[in-house]
């Protein structure tokens, strides 16, 4: 770990205290789904009318649209299950207008977002540090505490940290030693299964559920039913069918029946307690002939205690088993040992800097967890309080690397530099015969501004030109379809499990005996210039060619596996990077600095062992990028009936329209000529200081590229399960036959199948963060031994100013395919920082 925090020798102790308090909010708006019960009833009435109108026509028994609307009014509550108004089911929506009955009164209006999210999700932190030094010794000490109540109810995080860093030099004239020890303890309470696509994902649930389904359960008169289980005192509405004593019935809720994220959150305890301990020790000895020997040891360990506890009320499953409890213990450690020999020497105009080193790295992980059920009470989630054993898991992993490395730097006149490096590395991921790889690099740099011929050009403060060329290796292989690293990639691996007490052994992943390092060759040129004492400019071009890519090659699923890792093909990434900062104003009172940066990325496949490889919606062929979409192409909407139209390829190779998605998916997929890679991304901003005030504002942007907005089109493609609908007014209806989006139709699933209709530009502009402050720096503070006091405010992830569609946030996924992600949070905080002298 590199840190700039350190003490300084011969300096008086300096103490600094920083304390901050803030709030977390949702950072970007959700999709434009219906917000009120009235809006939803009217929307679904229209959906049902148009669906029935289409169905009757395609069946050859056509209804008039008026009849279809009457059908919708009659069947609306039958389909939806819940009538939240005080009028008869069939009278809720007027078939002639499609509007809600003006005489109807809303009887209940629960809001899931109120129940699931905190209005005042706050966090606070305090850090104290002391630094200083004496002759031949310096120190830095810090302690901190942080408490964070998450945006979703019941989630929270708190952490305590401590760190001590001490360096001592010239011990017995030739030895210097240093130590950096830090400890952190954190406790987290998670929301069960957050972020996934399950019904318990609070963000997905509030977005998807129609606003006609209440949070809490109500009786036949819409009075709340009480419960002593929930935090609110009201019974959760699990969406089950209800029959009341007066003979009336309600429901069932036609969405996520038996599910209730608030019940799941409130009736679960998902916690993680983590201890982190990090030690870095180094010793350096001066040897003869200006050679130094340095030994570095770094040990990092993390101990996790995890609890996943579903109280009996968390779900139907937890109820039937009277509580489910999984407790786990994980232990991770990483030990690095380095031995370095360095030699630095100046001979007149010549400087030499040579390093030889050896390194070993051992990473170990062990885990143990036990799952039991039927617990006594809900107050203590420990396994001894449970009756029934269900399962247990335990495994270890180990990952080892070893490397020899060297670096050579030669300088002439402090102006011309040459450098060369070489590494010889082994990774335990590969078979012993394929383990070692040789990597090297060479580079040169030239501080142009030191040259005589530029000495007349006073406006050039600094200029440096550098070029480099080199190779590097990658040994990161993952188990198929996971983010879990495979540390024994050269062997077939099996899962051992049980079948009614007997051992079972089934193939999990295919090994590759010949797998070895993926090698990338990079070339880069960089120019750094400082001008007029005001402008700093950096320009760079890079080109990186990766060979023997570690690639999960798709297999025919009929082989029993879907992929096999191979060193496979070549790919080139190239682009430019530019960064500029300009001190626009600088005087005693005011200083304004503007900055901007951009980078571009171009990706091209240069070699593949097969003509084409389809991976999801991307097709890999030589000459194109690895992220070029090859998929079904939409041809818009049939204006006569609102059907989705797709393109397919007929026997003659001509592109023709079809409303049969299966036909288009079988014969019609094509290159869309859109890529998932943005063309440009970057940022710009300013820092302003005026007297004691300071203000920083930073923006981020991205241009080009397309992502699949699966969430939005998934909602429009609703099936017979009832879900909320976004932008319904942009879809085809009898009254809106020129709309750009197909008819929303629960009975026609081909309307919104996966096609390029889903592709949405990845461009965005965001106000990334704002910080501002005022520093008190006057003599009156002296008597309290205070050097200065700074009051400040920070807004992080302030606002998504532009994206292609409200609710679509391209920042959440690297290739832009939306799923049930938790939205980005905005945090706003105020703080005070006091420096004591």
């Amino acid at each position, binding site marked *: 770990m590199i840190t700039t925090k350190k003490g300084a020798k011969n300096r008086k102790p300096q103490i600094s205290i920083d304390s901050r308090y803030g709030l977390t909010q949702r950072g970007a708006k959700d999709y434009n789904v219906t917000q009120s019960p009235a809006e939803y009833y009217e929307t679904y009435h229209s959906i049902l009318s148009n669906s029935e109108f289409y169905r009757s026509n395609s069946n050859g028994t056509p209804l008039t649209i008026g009849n279809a609307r009457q059908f919708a009014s009659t069947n609306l509550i039958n389909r939806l299950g819940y009538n939240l108004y005080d009028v008869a089911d069939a009278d809720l929506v007027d078939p002639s207008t499609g509007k809600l009955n003006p005489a109807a009164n809303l009887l209940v209006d629960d809001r899931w977002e109120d129940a699931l999210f905190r209005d005042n999700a706050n966090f606070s932190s305090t850090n104290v540090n002391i630094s200083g030094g004496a002759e031949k010794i310096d120190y830095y000490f810090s302690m901190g505490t942080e408490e964070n109540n998450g945006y979703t109810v019941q989630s929270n995080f708190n952490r305590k940290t401590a760190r001590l860093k001490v360096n001592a030099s010239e011990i017995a004239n030739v030895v210097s030693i240093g130590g950096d020890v830090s400890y952190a303890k954190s406790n987290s309470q998670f929301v069960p299964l957050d972020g996934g696509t399950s019904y318990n994902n609070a963000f997905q649930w509030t977005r998807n559920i129609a606003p006609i389904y209440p949070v809490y359960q109500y009786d036949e008169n819409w009075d709340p039913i009480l419960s002593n289980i929930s935090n609110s005192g009201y019974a959760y509405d699990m969406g089950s069918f209800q029959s009341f004593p007066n003979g009336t019935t309600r429901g069932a809720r036609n969405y996520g029946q038996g599910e209730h994220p608030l019940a799941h959150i409130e009736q679960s305890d998902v916690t993680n307690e983590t201890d982190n301990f990090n030690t870095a020790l180094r010793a350096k000895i001066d040897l003869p002939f200006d050679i130094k020997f340095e030994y570095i040891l770094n040990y990092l360990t993390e101990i996790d205690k995890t609890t996943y506890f579903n109280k009996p009320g968390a779900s139907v499953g937890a109820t*039937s088993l009277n509580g489910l409890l999984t407790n786990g213990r994980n232990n991770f450690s990483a030990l690095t040992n380095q031995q370095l020999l360095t030699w630095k020497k100046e001979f007149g105009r010549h400087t030499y800097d040579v390093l030889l080193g050896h390194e070993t790295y051992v990473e170990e992980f062990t885990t143990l967890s036990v799952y039991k059920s039927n617990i006594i009470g809900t107050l203590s989630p420990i396994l001894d309080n449970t009756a029934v054993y269900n399962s247990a898991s335990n495994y270890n992993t180990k990952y080892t690397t070893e490397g020899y490395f060297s670096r050579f730097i030669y300088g002439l006149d402090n102006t011309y530099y040459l450098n060369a490096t070489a590494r010889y590395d082994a990774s335990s991921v590969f078979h012993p015969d394929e383990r070692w790889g040789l990597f090297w690099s060479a580079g040169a740099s030239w501080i142009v501004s030191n040259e005589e011929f530029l000495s007349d050009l006073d406006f050039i403060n600094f200029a440096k030109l550098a070029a480099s060329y080199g190779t590097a290796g990658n040994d990161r292989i993952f188990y198929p379809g996971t983010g879990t690293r495979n540390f024994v990639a050269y062997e077939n691996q099996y899962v051992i499990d049980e079948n009614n007490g007997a051992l079972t052994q089934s193939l999990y992943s295919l090994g590759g005996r010949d797998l070895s390092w993926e090698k990338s060759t990079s070339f880069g040129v960089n120019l750094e210039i400082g001008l007029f004492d005001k402008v700093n400019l950096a320009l760079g071009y890079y080109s990186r060619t990766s060979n023997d890519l570690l690639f999960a090659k798709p297999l025919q699923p009929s*082989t029993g596996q879907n992929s096999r890792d191979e060193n496979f093909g070549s790919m080139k990434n190239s682009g430019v990077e530019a960064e500029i900062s300009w001190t626009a104003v600088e005087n005693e009172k005011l200083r304004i600095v503007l900055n901007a940066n951009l980078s571009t990325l171009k990706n091209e496949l240069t070699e593949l062992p097969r003509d084409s490889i389809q991976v999801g919606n991307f097709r890999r062929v030589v000459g194109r990028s690895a992220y070029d979409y090859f998929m079904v192409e939409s041809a818009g909407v049939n204006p006569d009936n609102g059907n989705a139209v797709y393109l397919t390829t007929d026997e003659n190779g001509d592109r023709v329209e079809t409303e049969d998605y299966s036909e288009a998916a079988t014969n019609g997929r094509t290159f869309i000529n859109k890529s998932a890679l943005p063309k440009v991304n970057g940022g710009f901003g300013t820092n302003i200081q005026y007297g004691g005030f300071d203000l920083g504002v930073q923006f981020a942007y991205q241009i080009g590229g397309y992502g699949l907005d699966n969430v939005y089109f998934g909602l429009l493609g609703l099936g017979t399960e009832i879900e909320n609908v976004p932008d319904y007014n942009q879809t085809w209806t009898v009254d809106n036959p020129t709309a750009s989006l197909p008819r929303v139709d629960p009975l026609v699933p081909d309307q919104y199948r996966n096609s390029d209709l889903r592709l949405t530009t990845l461009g965005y502009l965001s106000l990334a963060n704002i910080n501002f402050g005022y520093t008190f720096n006057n003599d009156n503070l002296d008597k309290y031994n205070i050097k200065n006091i700074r009051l400040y405010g920070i807004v992080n992830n302030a606002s998504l100013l532009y994206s292609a569609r409200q609710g679509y946030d391209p920042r959440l996924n690297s290739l832009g395919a939306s799923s049930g992600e938790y939205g980005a949070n905005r945090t706003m905080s105020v703080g005070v920082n006091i420096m004591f002298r």
Partner: protein
Amino acid sequence: MINIKYTNMRLDKFIPLLTAILIISSCSDLDDRDFADERFYTSSHASAVSASGGSTGLVALDASILSYLMAGESSTDEFGLKAVDIAFDLRSNDLDMSGSTWFGGYHRYDNVLPNSNDTEHLWEFFYRVINQANGIINTIPDDSPEDILVYKYKSKTYRAIAYFYLIRIFQHTNAADSVEAIPIDFGDFVGEPNSTVGEVKQLILDDLTQAYNGLQGYSRSSKEEVDATVVAAFLARYHLTYENWTEAERFASEAMAFGSLSSDVAHGFDEIGLSEAIWGSVITAQTTTFYRSFFSHMSQISDGYSGWNHFKSINSNLYDLIPSTDERKKWFADQEYDPGVVIVPGSWGHYNFTPKYTMLKFWDGPTYGNFIGDYIYLRNAEFYLTKAEALARLNRDTEAQQVLFDLNSTRDASYVKSTSTGQALIDEIILYRRIELFGEGVASFDMARLGVGLNRQDGRLNPVQPGADVVVPVGSDKMIFPIPTLEIDAQQ
């Protein structure tokens, strides 16, 4: 000793320190493999275990196939063979669901796409069985001892079962032998082009025949395992499907001779101890897949998915054809029941109401919601019907009438032996197949072999989910699944 000129001390003080550092830090255990340090069981670990003797590995590989047939994949509608049974019965004329939930796509026929999850699952599930079976078949030489060869024959059975499903799911049952069908894989992870219908059928028959002969001397320890009777049952299914009536009759006779018919038809079909069960899987508290299970989806009584938000029911037209004296009529609700009513004696009430025609055939105890009911894959009653049909097809009507009587008289005390002959007798047998085997995964495959289309616009009164009131004619592309895009894209 080296004196350092510009220091006032000697380096030798530091030599112990240097030495210690070098010793501590230069040990590299890169090449030390310890089997305890692997996330999963590796092939070299397996080799080392095998080398130490015994057949632990082979037994575990075999058991994993049985386990996979029982539990399948992790999605809620992918729990192995019984999930396929549900899926395909929902494609038949006989079983309906009232609302959309898991398996809804099968019922609506709208998952028949080259890139749907269901298409991919059906393909991958059976080919994984084939791959696991090939793994065993390829490692056992033909001259192995008998107790090892048994595993080879068992795996040939699993392989044949998987291909038998695949060929009927991905190609029309009556397709000519020369028609292109599906790949025959060899377990080498290379990938093969499509074989013809005839080649696949021949492989199934060869595998089953070899297994049948090879397992003659083998006596299984439980009904969870595969033996010659199980193979005979699949041979009977095979020959019935491809209309080799003599062979069908022969193997059905053998399969139906196993165990005995039970007069208690209301027990829920949740115990492989049932005298009618030929082959199945025991489900325990440890191996249950809870709501992702057969009884969760098929039994309103067991309080799983069925009954929460939808009901599974019988086509009312079929219900009306069941004689009122037939015990099997009690497998379905004869009227709408209020919440809490115990409809099947020995079970319990449901908080939901129960519409007329709701299926009550399957339920598991001892209480609702624990889902530890066993899975029955094969039942001897099926082979009475297979034998009866084969006999009738062979114009041996008297014998057919008797076999049908032997079964039906255990279900209906008033059943009178049929006097029908010819097609009328065959029709009666087929009707009783639809009744007896309701919900057991046979109905839509019977439709395919008998050339019957789907017609849900037949005036049925039981609740059918919106969008599922479809008509699919015989021979329609919708009657089979297309080969997944994933397979075709990788087939180069």
